[in-house]
């Protein structure tokens, strides 16, 4: 009997105008936007490859170890086509130095052709689903029960020995089947477009992640269908059901996510916390500076010049007839809690009168660099906690607030699958920090700090070829799944809960 019901419902739904409209609009939007997104991804990938090349070149230009830090580029995530998350927004190049532990707030944006293009908000595939699928689900659901009640067909159906639960189930299954058609067809088209692009190569893991996104989409769709059905079950007339459904949609999809974040004031305590942490970090470095000055004062070369007045020849970017460069300063940026000491030089050939100073400089750097590394690590411990409370916690609270709407849960789940959420991005910076440790170990192994190559290429430039290479692999699918699971389970639970309520309402309602 239930199969007959499903067949009847399916035919009813498939023949309607709304079904044709749903398929058409989903195809139109997904294809048009996929093309834009794929092009955008290709552009970002090209920028990444250029960045890699420039980094390589710049490294070769440096003749000494201390001539500057290393730049590491962040590859764009191909799944950002589905849900862009933070992938495009956050900085994609990070600078690594022994004197500073980098975080995602220190990354900068590199290689964007026109930064003003951000004015046109990027529409990813998940956003289309968020808006259109939910609307479709409500349009399919609003008259599921109220319509039959109005036309009197519900009474007819119930004269047969059918359980009411079966009617609900039949309606649910058939409508979901119909709604899956535009979802899957449009995704299939998007996948075809993806595979035609030569720049994008997807691994098996990526296909599993896309599978996860599809699963989340289905569950999300089902939530909105059930909301519509609930409205349909409690209202007498289809007109009222439709009106309610539209306002519920407008509220959850359009209004709630935007209003809730605007209305919640950002915590005021963060400013005081910023200042106190900055002072704390500054104190750590002040202590370092005292020891540094103390060391210089005890040195045989009088004065406090950290470069011992060494001069020579060497390239100095963009300056005619450069004599190499020296630098020694405290970098300050209170708004990002950045405070650290940088010192070094890049001198090619030393002048004769500078040569007797070399042992002094060697001695000094031998003392200074390990000290800098230690201080940087100590400052990092303080900074890490502050960043966590000042920047990460409000973002987490925001996400929790957004999760009060199914749209927020769906967004969070798909971001987790795609790896474009905060966790996914932080994975990269975790690897960057690990790489920094590797580099420092490498310097220790090479005894770089005490060597002349640290500041001058007088006895030959640094051989950069044996430097450990940076590589980043996106996290395993299982980790993505584990991150997406809470939101997915929440959505499924809402589904079950809604179905139960509808069942109870429908069971007790008069026909």
């Amino acid at each position, binding site marked *: 009997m239930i199969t007959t019901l499903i067949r009847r419902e399916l035919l009813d739904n498939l023949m309607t*105008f*709304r079904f044709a*409209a749903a398929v058409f*609009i989903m195809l*139109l*939007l997904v294809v048009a936007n996929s*093309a*834009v997104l794929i*092009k955008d991804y290709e552009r970002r990938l090209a920028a990444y490859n*250029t960045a890699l090349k420039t980094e390589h070149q710049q490294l070769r230009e440096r003749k000494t170890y201390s001539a500057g830090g290393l730049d590491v580029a962040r590859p764009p995530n191909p799944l950002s086509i589905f849900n862009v998350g933070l992938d495009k*927004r*956050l*900085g994609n190049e990070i600078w690594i130095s022994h004197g500073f532990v980098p975080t*995602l*707030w220190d990354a*900068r*944006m590199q*290689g964007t*052709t*026109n*930064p*003003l*293009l951000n*004015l*046109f*908000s*990027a*529409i990813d595939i998940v956003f289309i689903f968020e*808006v259109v699928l939910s609307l479709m689900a409500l*349009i399919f659901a609003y008259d599921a029960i109220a319509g039959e009640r109005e036309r009197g067909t519900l009474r007819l159906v119930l004269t047969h020995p059918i359980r009411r639960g079966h009617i609900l189930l039949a309606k649910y299954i058939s409508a979901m089947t119909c709604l899956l058609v535009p979802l899957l067809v449009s995704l299939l088209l998007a996948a075809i477009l993806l595979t035609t692009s030569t720049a994008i190569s997807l691994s098996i893991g990526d296909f599993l992640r896309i599978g996860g996104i599809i699963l989340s989409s289905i569950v999300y769709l089902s939530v909105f269908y059930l909301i519509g059905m609930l409205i349909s079950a409690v209202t007498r007339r*289809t*007109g*009222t059901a439709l*009106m*309610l459904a*539209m*306002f519920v949609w*407008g509220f959850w999809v*359009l*209004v709630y*996510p*935007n*209003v809730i*974040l*605007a*209305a919640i*004031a950002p915590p005021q305590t963060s400013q005081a916390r910023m200042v106190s942490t900055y002072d704390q970090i500054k104190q750590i470095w002040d202590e370092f500076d005292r020891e540094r000055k103390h060391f210089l004062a005890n040195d045989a070369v009088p004065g406090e010049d950290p470069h011992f007045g060494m001069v020579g020849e060497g390239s100095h970017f*963009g*300056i*005619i*007839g*450069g*004599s190499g460069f020296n630098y020694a300063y405290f970098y300050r940026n209170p708004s*990002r809690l950045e405070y650290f000491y940088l010192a070094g030089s890049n001198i090619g050939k030393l002048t004769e009168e500078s040569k007797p100073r070399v042992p002094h400089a060697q001695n000094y750097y031998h003392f200074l660099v390990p000290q800098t590394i230690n201080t940087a690590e100590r400052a990092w411990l303080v900074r890490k906690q502050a960043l966590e409370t000042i*920047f990460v916690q409000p*973002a987490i609270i*925001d*996400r929790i607030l*957004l999760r009060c709407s199914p749209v927020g849960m769906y*967004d969070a789940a798909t971001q987790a699958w795609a790896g474009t959420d905060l966790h996914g991005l932080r994975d990269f910076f975790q690897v960057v920090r690990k790489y920094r440790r590797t580099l420092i170990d490498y310097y220790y192994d090479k005894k770089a700090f005490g060597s002349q190559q640290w500041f001058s290429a007088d006895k030959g430039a640094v051989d950069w070829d044996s430097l450990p290479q940076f590589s980043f692999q996106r996290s395993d699918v299982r980790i993505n799944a584990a991150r997406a699971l809470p939101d997915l389970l929440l959505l499924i639970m809402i589904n079950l809960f809604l179905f139960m309520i509808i069942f109870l309402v429908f069971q007790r309602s008069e026909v």
Partner: protein
Amino acid sequence: MWHIAKREIYDNLNSLRFALATVLLFGLMLTNAVVHLREHPMRMQKYHDAVTESLNRSRSRTHLYDIAQRGPGLLYKKPSSLHFCADGGDIFLPDAVHILIRRITDGLMGFWQLDYRPATHNSKNIRPDTIKVDWGFVIGYVLSLIAILFTFDSISGEREHGTLRLMLANSIPRHTVLIGKFLGALVSISVPFTLAVLMNLLVISTSSDVQLGTEAWNRLGIIFFIAMLYLCLFLALGLLVSSRVQQSAASLVILLLTWVIFVVFMPSTLASIASGFSTPMTYDEFRERRTRLYIQLSDEYVTRLQDAREHPAKRIALGGEYVTKDAAARERLSQEFLDQQHAQIQLGRSVTRISPVAIVQYLLEVFAGTGFERHQQFVENAQRYAREYREFVTDMDRADPESLHIIGIPEGMSKKPINSESIPTFEDTLSLSRDFNTAIIDLLLLALFFVVLLSGAYMVFVRVEI
């Protein structure tokens, strides 16, 4: 006609949708006002602090060479007091024009130039993306959705109930019915909307931190008029579809899908597609050209310097020439880079004018003094100021008979101390008449959309069978 309108209004006032729409509009407008009151003082404070700091820095210079070489402090964009009307994506737009100084050789310092750095506020932001709840959102998204929900069944619903036949049997002309319906819906939406707007303005103007001048009120009046025109446009669209389609459910489906496409997707998707056709200089290309420029200029300088080794006066003249030439060439290049970027955005924006919501968004931005048009205006202001500043330096130098009149080299310029009060200061201004001129085409376009839709609705309704 008034009879029909009155009946329609009574019908609407008692309906569920009226109550829900009112609650929604009031809630949104209240949030908007509260957020503005919270954020605007901070924004103004930040601007004033930055301007004072930049002014102090430039005032501390008294030597003409210093003034000429270092240039003014950073030039900041003045935040608009009507920020609550349209946010205009201000987070993606730079709020200042920077000053760049280049060292040419160890002895020769280059002159300042305007440096258009991209905005970076958002690249550190890990909070979720949202649309700003400004008037643009309330009008563009919510008001249009409400307009659709009020009109989708106004004709098809009556046809379904059979009341349309009854009404037309009373020898009422069809156009009267249509206009009556239109007016009824217009009044029943514009009343809660106007009240919500008034409440919003009341909350905002009670605060002492936010002052709205006469010009601001004029701008608000224009914005309200635009909102009304936009509302009429969607009402006409609703009537058109409602009279064409037999069932009100189908009419709603069509209207909603049109709405989703035009309002939610069209502005960004079309703009992204269109801006793909324009390929401005990439940053790498820009950097390469800049390096080539440096090399070319310095090669020229070095060869000419070798000829003039024995003549100190000639060397000074050469140095001065080099510095001025270098500054002018660099500024030209970055200006070209910026212009190409702006042209790309302009292209994207002009294509999206197919969608009325985009037009309204742009109009609101123009009249609220935010967004891209405003940013272009700010950049122009900064450029005009830069010219003024340079002219000031030349004038001061010319006024001193002891000077060698070689701009660019300390030895070649006047050494008289300059009164720092006399240095021109940057004033970022807005003018309503200018804004009006940029907006007039958009306004006409919007009116045209409305006329076409309304006459379309009339034509369809006159010919339709009942």
